[in-house]
Structures are given as structure tokens and as C-alpha cells.
């Protein structure tokens, strides 16, 4: 559906900075997150995890644990069936190992007991016999023909013959004649890059409370980005119908994609079923790092050819990703996103996914894109240096725009890349002088954004207030934005609208909160639901006035006659109509269900200034500016917040964050001490510039914004550091030992 012809521009509520509805609860400690919910009779659930990177489970003896006084249930994968669906089976096998343990931290068994001490003692009594197997954690090692085999026969039809046994997927995108393109280039740069796996680093560990009744009905309270998806996965794993399981999403303490699947929830439900009591499981931080869903790590080759005026004539990338011990499709998105910012005649990306003995990957803000775009933007920057060209001018010269056939197939409609590049060029940051040991870097960023299954219900209350019911956990302030869109459409003050997030027993399906989809898709559905309610209200008023329904229009929160010919009637406000609704036919509501399409892509550009201490390799970020196209910023504070938060995650990824595995295949830094996310003193202010190039696919022009900002920092910082020290770097993170080594290699 194309809203271009009727994209609104005269907004009353959209674009203002209203207070968020959950603010008071969160600043007073009243808000309830995953671990904050308690019920009578609750048992403590704990999970036993593998200390080995790869081993067969020869036997598990739980008898001593089950016999310990105070223990109510002990389970292993033997307590579950084996799902037929491959994807569901992988999820289940990740939650509780079946036959083999595939990574350090892989769950093997779980207990429910009356308190933590008893549960811990019970775990110690579980006897597991393992036969150790060779393991592999590095992506390139895992792709080899003679690599230890993580799982047999998991390759899909896309994998070319002759690939190593751990390669599960291959993809290819692009168009044009690469050889001809490279022949036109006056300079070609070909480089290889590696990035380490990172974790979303949400401060709230996974937590849930499961209550399985003897009648086969179950309740689950959990911190999640998608309660409907949790319901689908858990009901599938437990072999019950979806309607028998009600999942309620708590307030969520950060997700960023990492809470779009399940890890402990099926385990808690299975324990509760066996124990006949509610069971609460809260993950420890160590287990979050070892056994939830980090990103892929990557090894990549990029080759780009450029004329001396800066025109890219050909571009090619080979991306090798590992997504842990289960098949992972993230490389598809990386391969599609890699060159999305450019208008290219000849482009090709190829991607491979390989299995490793590492935890199962989960999404982390624009999954697959940050590493691929890091590699591409690094090579573009190197070409700019070699040819002594301004890096922004080169981006502008080659920028994708409306009508560009993208590197991944679709032709772009209106997009905001040129606007962000022009804004960066005009900004004071780009002109600010740099001192000794300082460097400036920039990078473009891109994300597709998604629509998806969405259901919204909107009730006009008899007192003239409005209740919006939606099904997507609020991870960035979306409840406020949804209320704002309802208020805008209905023409009433924001304060009259309350948006709540419901559990799975209400509404139709809602896809998870991801893909930057909520403000777009739930917003779109809310606007449609509001329009349905408006139509109903106009119909009621038409009856009261005795005129045709299409002679009544809605304006400024009132039903009005469409013109003098319709009749001379006093407008009726929403509150007036609502007050008499039971006499005019009954309660008034609107609803809308859709699998939303038309999500607009979001482009961004980041500028980063750094200073490097040449004697220690220590890097300080001096100045940082984020330029991004939001389509229409519904609540500018929250759009800025996404830009700043994503940028800082990217800064951490670029400078310090990484998963470190030892020779033994065990994770060495499973905690916030040695998994180093940015702290407040590491950073300057993050300045933001919001561009608004409306998305024709949304009534107000909204584009998703949450994911794009994590993409540019990787190359922006790498380019800045490389320029500061005069040596090109090609691996992330750029921790001080690596930088110092590069500095010393110059002499």
C-alpha cells in the first residue's frame, strides 16, 4: 500500500516530545521485569551446563539429585519429545542437549527445588559421563574439509559440492559484469578482515516464571521481545496447543535482538509440568554469555575497484560467518546489506555459514550487516586515502538513491542516504580541525527494516479516553509512539490515550519486536484501527443526524457534517459520542490485523574523531555525530535515543568487545569485567541529526530506526584509528595491544 499521495505533514502530536507512560514506574523501581515476579509455591530452577566444547553424552544419572530432599523435579531432553520441524528441533536441542554437547555452556539438565541452596546441591549430584570430541571455534578453521564435524548433514541445498562438512549455507547476490568492471578501475584494493563475536549485553539476564497446571494449561511470565513467538516455540516443544499456554511479557531490560528466541522458557515449563509447582529460572551473567545468542564472528574478503575520480566500477565481497553449533542464516542479510549504500554497475557478494562449537547465534541489531559493511567501508576509505579523495565526496558520488537498483535486488524508492551524506558534509564536525595523533573516520550504514504480522485493537471508552491494545514489548519507548499515533489520528490529546501490551491470550498473532518494526508496523495498524473506530463513530453520528454515513467527516477530534449541503449540525466530540455509545449501538472500537509490508529502509552516516596514544595504543573517542533518516520522527527523543544507543554499542564492538575462546574451546571472558562494554567515562556526547525523507509505505512516513545505528561505528572508528596512526587496521576489536603493535610496525 502506498501512502505517498496522502502522507501527512501537518502533525499536531507526532514530532512532539511527550512523557512516556512507563516512565514513573521505571524511575521509582515499581516496574516489574522478568526476575521481579513471584508467586506462592514457587520453586527455584537451575540448569546444569556442559564444561566441554564438544562431547558425546554417554549417560546422565539424575537419581541422586531427584532423591535429594527439597527437589521437586529433574529433567533432561529425555523428558521432551523430538519436534519434526527442523528449526524447532534446533531451538529445543539448544535449550537442552540431546546426545551431544556442542559448546561450553550447553544446557544438559535442570532441577527445580525449594531454594537456591538445594537446587545447587542437586546440580552437583547429577552425574554425567562424557566422551570428549575434537572441537573447532574459529570460522576459517571450521570451514576446512578436515575440520571436526559439529553436526552431521546439516548443509542445505545451497551449499556447493566440495565444501567442508560444517558449511550449512551458501548465498550469492549481485548483478553486472565484475571482470569488465574491474578492468575499468584505475585502482583496486583487496583486503581481508576478521571480526570477533559480540553479545547484545543487555543488563537484564533472561528470567522467567512458569506455572503449569495439572489441567494442561500453563502460564509463563518472561522477559522477551515476542511473547507470541515464545508461545509458539514453547507449545511446540512441550507438545501442547498454543491456546493452552498464555505468555505474558514483563517489562524488558534490554533485548537488541537477543531476546527474540527462547533459552530457559521451555525448561522452566517442563520443570513446572513435572514438579506440579511454579518454577522460576533466572540466568546468571556467566550463563548469559556462555549460552544465549551472541553474534556471528566473521572472516571476509573485499575487493573494490575505483577510478581516479572516485567512481566505484566493481565491488566484490566474500563473507564467511559462523553462527555457532546450529545452522544460521545471518550471512544472507550481511551479503545483501554489504553494498546497499552504493549505486553499482557490477557487484557480487557471496556468503557462507559454518557450524562451530559455540553458542547458537541470535540477532543483535541489524544482524549480519555490521561486519560486512565494516569491511566494505574500510576498503572504500583506503581507496580514498590512496587516491587522495575526500571520503564524503566519494560516498556522495556513488550513493544509492531513488531508482537505484540495489546490490541485493530491489530498486530503491525514496531513500535518505543522500540527505544524510549532505548533512554530514555541511556539519561543523566535518570541518573541525584535528590535532596530533587524532584521526577522523566515517561510514555509511543501512538496514532493511521489516513489517510483519501485527494485530492491534483500539477501544473508545465511555469517558472519552482511548485504550490501545497491542502485542509488542516496548524496548525503546514505542508505547508512547503508538499512543501518539492514535492521538494524532483521532484528533485528541496524547494524555487521553493509554497503550498496553497484552499477553498471548488476546489479539491475533504479533511477530516479535525486532527488525525495527514496531513504530512502523504497530503504528500502521494502530492508525488503521483508529480509522476503523472513526468510521464507526461517524456512522453513529450519521444515524443521530439522519444523514448518510459518508456525509460525516472526522476533523480535530470531532464528527462534522462534510459540508453545508450535509446539514447544519453541531460537531460532536469523541467524548460526546463515546458517552452515548451504549444507546447508539454499543461499545465502539476499531481493530486491524496485517502482515505489514512497505517498511522503508533506513540509511545513516556516522562521523567519529579519535585520539590514539602512540605509546600505549589507547584510543579515546573525542567526538561522534550520527546522521540518520527516520522517515518521520514520531518522538524525536526516542529516535535520538536509538541513534545514540546503537552508536555506542558499535563503538564497544569496534574497540573492545569480543568473545575470547581458549585452546580448550571454553569461553574465557564470560562476565562484564572482561567482556568490556563502554562505560560512561569512555565516551563523549553522541550528537544526533535526524533527517526525514518520508517512507511512502507508512501513513505518516515512518521508517524503523533502531538497527541502522549499530552499523556505521565499526568502520567509522576503524577508519579514524587507521588515519590517526597511519596504518590500516583490518580486525575487530581494535584493542590497544593490536593498535600498539600496528604503530610499532610502522618503524
Amino acid at each position, binding site marked *: 500500500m502506498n501512502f505517498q499521495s496522502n502522507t501527512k505533514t501537518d502533525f499536531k502530536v507526532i514530532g512532539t516530545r511527550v512523557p*512516556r507512560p512507563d516512565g514513573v514506574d521505571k524511575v521509582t523501581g515499581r516496574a516489574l521485569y522478568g526476575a521481579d515476579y513471584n508467586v506462592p509455591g514457587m520453586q527455584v530452577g537451575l540448569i546444569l551446563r556442559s564444561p566441554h566444547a564438544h562431547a558425546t553424552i554417554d549417560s546422565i544419572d539424575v537419581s541422586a539429585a531427584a532423591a535429594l530432599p527439597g527437589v521437586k523435579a529433574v529433567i533432561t531432553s529425555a523428558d521432551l519429545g523430538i519436534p519434526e520441524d527442523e528449526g524447532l528441533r534446533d531451538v529445543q536441542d539448544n535449550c537442552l542437549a540431546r546426545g551431544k554437547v556442542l559448546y561450553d555452556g550447553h544446557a544438559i539438565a535442570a532441577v527445580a527445588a525449594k531454594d537456591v541452596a538445594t537446587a545447587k546441591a542437586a546440580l552437583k549430584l547429577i552425574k554425567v559421563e562424557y566422551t570428549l570430541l575434537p572441537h573447532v571455534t574459529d570460522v576459517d578453521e571450521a570451514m576446512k574439509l578436515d575440520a571436526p564435524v559439529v553436526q552431521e548433514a546439516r548443509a542445505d541445498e545451497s551449499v556447493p559440492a566440495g565444501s567442508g562438512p560444517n558449511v550449512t549455507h551458501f548465498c550469492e547476490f549481485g548483478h553486472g559484469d565484475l571482470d569488465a568492471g574491474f578492468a575499468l578501475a584505475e585502482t583496486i584494493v583487496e583486503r581481508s578482515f576478521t571480526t570477533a563475536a559480540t553479545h547484545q*549485553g543487555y543488563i537484564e539476564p533472561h528470567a522467567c516464571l512458569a506455572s503449569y497446571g495439572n489441567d494442561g494449561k500453563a502460564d509463563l511470565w518472561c522477559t522477551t521481545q515476542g511473547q507470541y513467538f515464545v508461545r509458539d516455540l514453547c507449545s511446540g516443544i512441550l507438545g501442547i496447543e498454543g491456546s493452552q499456554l498464555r505468555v505474558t511479557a514483563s517489562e524488558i531490560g534490554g533485548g537488541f535482538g537477543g531476546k527474540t528466541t527462547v533459552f530457559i522458557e521451555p525448561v522452566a515449563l517442563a520443570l513446572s509440568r513435572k514438579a506440579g509447582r511454579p518454577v522460576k529460572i533466572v540466568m546468571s551473567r556467566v550463563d548469559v554469555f556462555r549460552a544465549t545468542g551472541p553474534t556471528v564472528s566473521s572472516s571476509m574478503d573485499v575487493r573494490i575497484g575505483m577510478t581516479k575520480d572516485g567512481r566505484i566500477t566493481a565491488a566484490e565481497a566474500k563473507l564467511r560467518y559462523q553462527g555457532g553449533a546450529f545452522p544460521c542464516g545471518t550471512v544472507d542479510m550481511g551479503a545483501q546489506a554489504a553494498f546497499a549504500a552504493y549505486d553499482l554497475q557490477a557487484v557480487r557478494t557471496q556468503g557462507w555459514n559454518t557450524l562451530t562449537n559455540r553458542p547458537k547465534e541470535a540477532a543483535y541489531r541489524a544482524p549480519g550487516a555490521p561486519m560486512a559493511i565494516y569491511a566494505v567501508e574500510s576498503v572504500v576509505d583506503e581507496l580514498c586515502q590512496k587516491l587522495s579523495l575526500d571520503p564524503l565526496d566519494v560516498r556522495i558520488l556513488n550513493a544509492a538513491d531513488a531508482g537505484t537498483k540495489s546490490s541485493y535486488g530491489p530498486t530503491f524508492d525514496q531513500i535518505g542516504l543522500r540527505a544524510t551524506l549532505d548533512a554530514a558534509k555541511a556539519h561543523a564536525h566535518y570541518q573541525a580541525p584535528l590535532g596530533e595523533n587524532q584521526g577522523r573516520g566515517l561510514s555509511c550504514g543501512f538496514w532493511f527494516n521489516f513489517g510483519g504480522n501485527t494485530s492491534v485493537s483500539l477501544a473508545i471508552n465511555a469517558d472519552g479516553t482511548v485504550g490501545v491494545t497491542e502485542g509488542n514489548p516496548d524496548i525503546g519507548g514505542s508505547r508512547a509512539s503508538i499512543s501518539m499515533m492514535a492521538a494524532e489520528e483521532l484528533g485528541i490529546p496524547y494524555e487521553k490515550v493509554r497503550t498496553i501490551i497484552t499477553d498471548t491470550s488476546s489479539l491475533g498473532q504479533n511477530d516479535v519486536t525486532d527488525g525495527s518494526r514496531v513504530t512502523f508496523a504497530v503504528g500502521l495498524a494502530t492508525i488503521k484501527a483508529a480509522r476503523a473506530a472513526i468510521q464507526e463513530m461517524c456512522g453513529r453520528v450519521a444515524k443521530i443526524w439522519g444523514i448518510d454515513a459518508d456525509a460525516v467527516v472526522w476533523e480535530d477530534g470531532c464528527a462534522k457534517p462534510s459540508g453545508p449541503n450535509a446539514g447544519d449540525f453541531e460537531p460532536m466530540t469523541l467524548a460526546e459520542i463515546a458517552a452515548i455509545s451504549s444507546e447508539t449501538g454499543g461499545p465502539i472500537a476499531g481493530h486491524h490485523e496485517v502482515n505489514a509490508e512497505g517498511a522503508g529502509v533506513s540509511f545513516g552516516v556516522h562521523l567519529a574523531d579519535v585520539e590514539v596514544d602512540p605509546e600505549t595504543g589507547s584510543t579515546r573517542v573525542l567526538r561522534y555525530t550520527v546522521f540518520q533518516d527516520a522517515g518521520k520522527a514520531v518522538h524525536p527523543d526516542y529516535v535520538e535515543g536509538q541513534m545514540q544507543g546503537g552508536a*555506542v554499542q558499535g563503538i564497544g564492538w569496534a574497540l573492545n568487545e569480543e568473545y575470547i575462546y581458549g585452546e580448550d574451546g571454553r569461553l574465557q571472558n564470560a562476565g562484564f569485567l572482561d567482556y568490556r562494554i563502554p562505560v560512561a567515562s569512555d565516551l563523549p556526547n553522541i550528537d544526533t541529526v535526524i533527517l526525514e525523507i518520508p517512507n511512502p509505505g507508512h501513513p505518516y512516513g515512518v521508517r524503523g530506526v533502531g538497527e541502522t545505528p549499530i552499523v556505521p561505528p565499526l568502520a567509522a572508528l576503524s577508519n579514524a584509528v587507521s588515519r590517526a596512526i597511519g596504518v590500516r587496521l583490518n580486525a575487530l576489536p581494535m584493542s590497544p595491544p593490536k593498535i600498539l603493535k600496528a604503530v610499532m610496525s610502522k618503524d
Partner: protein
Amino acid sequence: MKNIHVSTTLNGDEAEFVCAPEETLLDALRNRLGLSGAKEGCGTGDCGACTVEMDGRLVCACLVLGAEAQDAQIKTVEGMAIGEALHPLQQAFIDHAALQCGICTPGILVAAKNLLERNPDPTDTEIRYWLAGNLCRCTGYDKIIKAVQIAAADMRGA
């Protein structure tokens, strides 16, 4: 195992609880005293989500034993608002979008309040270093620092 009976002062009120010797103050607040504002983000003192004030100093409640609360003055986020009136920091955080998911917010509010009581006019750098032990993954800290400055100005003016 010998349980311990602890008498303490919590947000100005006398409070008592019984806990196991190895239970932390965080466990006691959340499981014995019904206060879930302080959160466990790591259990190792690296994230600050469990920050409370103990005898006027900021501590990680996960690194204090429940038993050590005996005769101490403990203050948590639940004690910051007075009746209906939010503390200026709490109001500033809402007004200036200094929280997104909010999980780190109680710890940061308690920490910032302690700072402003010691130093009513801090620089941005001083605020950043004071809050270095409070991890936030959502905001990138920018709006948090700004909200603390706004609340500080408000409190100096009032």
C-alpha cells in the same frame, strides 16, 4: 547453617529480616524485604544495577552480605520520591528521555543522587567517572549525563 536476624533502617524506616549467612543484601532486599528496584545484572559488582546507599556511601548490594546491614542506614530507589513528588533526578530522567528499557535506572538514580549530595555542581566528566560503575546498554549515556546536569541545576536553584 545458621540464619541471621538483621535489624536495619531502610529508606528511613526500621526494618527486620532473617537471612542465611551467605545471602547478599541484594538477595535480602529482593527476596526478604519485597523491594525489587535494585536489580541483579551480573552478581559480581561490575554493572551497578544493584546500587544502593549504605551509611551514605554507594555500594553494590550484591557485594554486601545481608548480615552486614545490621544497624546500617540503607537507601534504595524506592525511597527517593517523597509521597507523590518525584525527586528532581527522577523527574529529569523522565522529562529528558534518560532511560529506555529502565533496568539500569534505579542504580543510576541512587548513584547520581549521592553524587549531587557531595558535589552539587559537577562537570560532565565528573558525572561520567562517578557513574562509570553503572552500565547502560540502551542510551549510550548521553541523555543520562544531560538529565543529571538538569536536575543538578534545578536542585541548586530551588
